[in-house]
């Protein structure tokens, strides 16, 4: 039996095309808790890994709406209701003057919100057990790393080892918490 502290299994490919092909194989083999770590995004990887399209655009839409409402609300409240004043003979609700800020506020809320959400999403949306940071995967250099987490329902070290080798992954090895690797 393997030591309980095993976190998962690791292997890598040297090119995006292999990675893409491999991803499809992993998905078809029924693995759930797997992930690919790549130096740059690979077109079509979502499908290959069987992931849904990102939900971020919906968040953005909401934020944009919020921005518009906030700006219109603030400007009308200030200029019309709270302390209406006569500026150069213009009506209190001189709506054309409110357009620029409304637009800017929409962009402000939407864009910054999106950026924030994206960063958080990037942190949260991982396999239950990502590869420990201590491991030098080389995924930021030129390796296209595949990772199967030990939490996967059909987890079995030997099977996983065999499987990754079978799809042509290199440097396949099990990884434990401290990042130590076992062939």
């Amino acid at each position: 039996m393997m030591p309980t502290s095993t976190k998962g299994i690791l292997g890598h490919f040297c090119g995006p095309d292999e990675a893409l092909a491999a991803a499809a194989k992993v998905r078809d083999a029924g693995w759930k808790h797997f992930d690919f770590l790549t130096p740059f995004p690979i077109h079509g990887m979502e499908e290959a890994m069987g992931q849904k399209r990102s939900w971020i655009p919906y968040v953005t839409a909401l934020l944009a709406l919020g921005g518009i409402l906030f700006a219109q609300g603030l400007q009308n409240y200030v200029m019309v209701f709270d302390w209406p004043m006569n500026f150069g003979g213009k009506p209190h609700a001189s709506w054309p003057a409110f357009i620029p800020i409304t637009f800017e506020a929409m962009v402000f809320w939407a864009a910054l919100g999106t950026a924030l959400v994206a960063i958080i999403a990037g942190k949260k949306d991982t396999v239950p057990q990502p590869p420990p940071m201590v491991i030098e995967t080389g995924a930021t250099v030129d390796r296209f790393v595949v990772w199967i987490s030990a939490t996967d329902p059909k987890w079995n070290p030997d099977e996983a080892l065999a499987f990754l080798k079978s799809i042509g992954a290199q440097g396949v090895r099990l990884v434990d918490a401290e990042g130590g690797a076992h062939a």
Partner: protein
Amino acid sequence: MTRLETSPYATVMDDGQLTGHPIVLAGKGPYGGDLEVDEPLVTGGKTWAEVDRDICMHTEQFPTKRWWMAFAVAATALAIGTFAMLMLFYSGMGILGINRPVGWGSFIINFVFWIGIGHAGTLISAVLYLFRQQWRTGINRAAEAMTLFAVACAGIFPIIHLGRPWFAYWLVPYPNARGPLWVNFNSPLAWDIFAISTYGLVSLAFWYIGLLPDLATVRDRATHPWRKKIYNAMSFGWTGSHRAWRHYESAYMILAAFATPLVFSVHTIVSFDFATSILPGWHTTIFPPYFVIGAIFSGFAMVITLMTFMRGYFGLTNYITTNHMEAMAKILMLTGLLVGFAYSTEFFMAWYSGSEWEGFVFKNRAFGPYGWAYAIMFTCNAIVPQIFWWKKMRRHAWVLFVVSILVNVGMWFERYVIVVTSLHRDFLPSSWGMYALTRWDYMILLGSFGLFFTLFLLFVRVLPVIAISEVKGVMDPKVARSAPTDAAPAAGMRR
């Protein structure tokens, strides 16, 4: 991000071999026809690993002498400007050149100038991204950084141009115990606050999102534990997990989609500062497009200036190739034409409107006491860039550099002409006057350049000046891939 399908025959080239034309491969096309393939965006047959080294190197080794010299110059300029600013705060606006007819002077000119500069970055990264312009990857990182620093410079001026800068915070509509007394949302200056701050922060977010994977790269190459920690924190522990890439890409696309209209809106609103007034020469509907074009124009000029430096100092010719420079030269030429068109349109309208006030302002602009400024502006902006009709010139480093400098000068004078000539002779002849910068104006202008270059020099020291992950994305894997090995990967290429 799509990957460029380049032909294996064209992948390994040096910058010198680039022609700017597609490579025609006789008989390699479908049905035996010719095949045209673009020249590679990254030359020198670089591998992905080498890309890391070439680019991250500059954040890792001790600064060169040239860097120190440049930094010293920039820092001195900054110090001079800071001193002038302290003097300004002590004694008031009196030390400046502004007066009664000309209530706005060098500060507003500099403000518009820097905001203009700040437009190229986001434009390059957002608009060119939406238009799938692959060549942007070589320059967008530096261009975006430039945007941020330019906006930072610009942001200073509206504050210090106030008579009582310590009350600048009254511009923010916050609940207060004065009634509450808010701000006047009819005023373009109130719009400015929102526009500039939005632009600054969104550009920052856009730039930083793009930076995340590269920060991780730097982290993984780092040897010192602290350096590792810091860059890890900055990259929010980026691993390259494709589940993150998924959100990342979608977010980046959205940001690009928002940044694009933002770019146009910001300078539009800045132009409102003038366009919504009743002053002949300011009160013009053409101003929004005119200002936006001008901004893109000056921005690209500044990018060319900086890129020339970077190519030279960091030997990044393989990533910022002559093709990149030529592409920018083309944009410069086009926007130059548009700006020239705007100038002529103004005159046409002045004549066509039949308004005495309008007509006089433009006569006075071109032939009045400030004709010299108008001449500088027109020559540098509308005429000089036309040299780029010659491909040879577009691809000539020095020509590019000189033209870019001239264009920046011209664009500063464009703002000078707009602000000063409209104000100095308006409705009542009795209140006419002249305007001249004082030594304090010059010192603060100098200081703003000092700030800009100080920030930029610091940036090139600590952050990857080229978007590594994006560049990798557009390289040909067949060339860039590393040799297959079963060994556990060593993190990064250690020196």
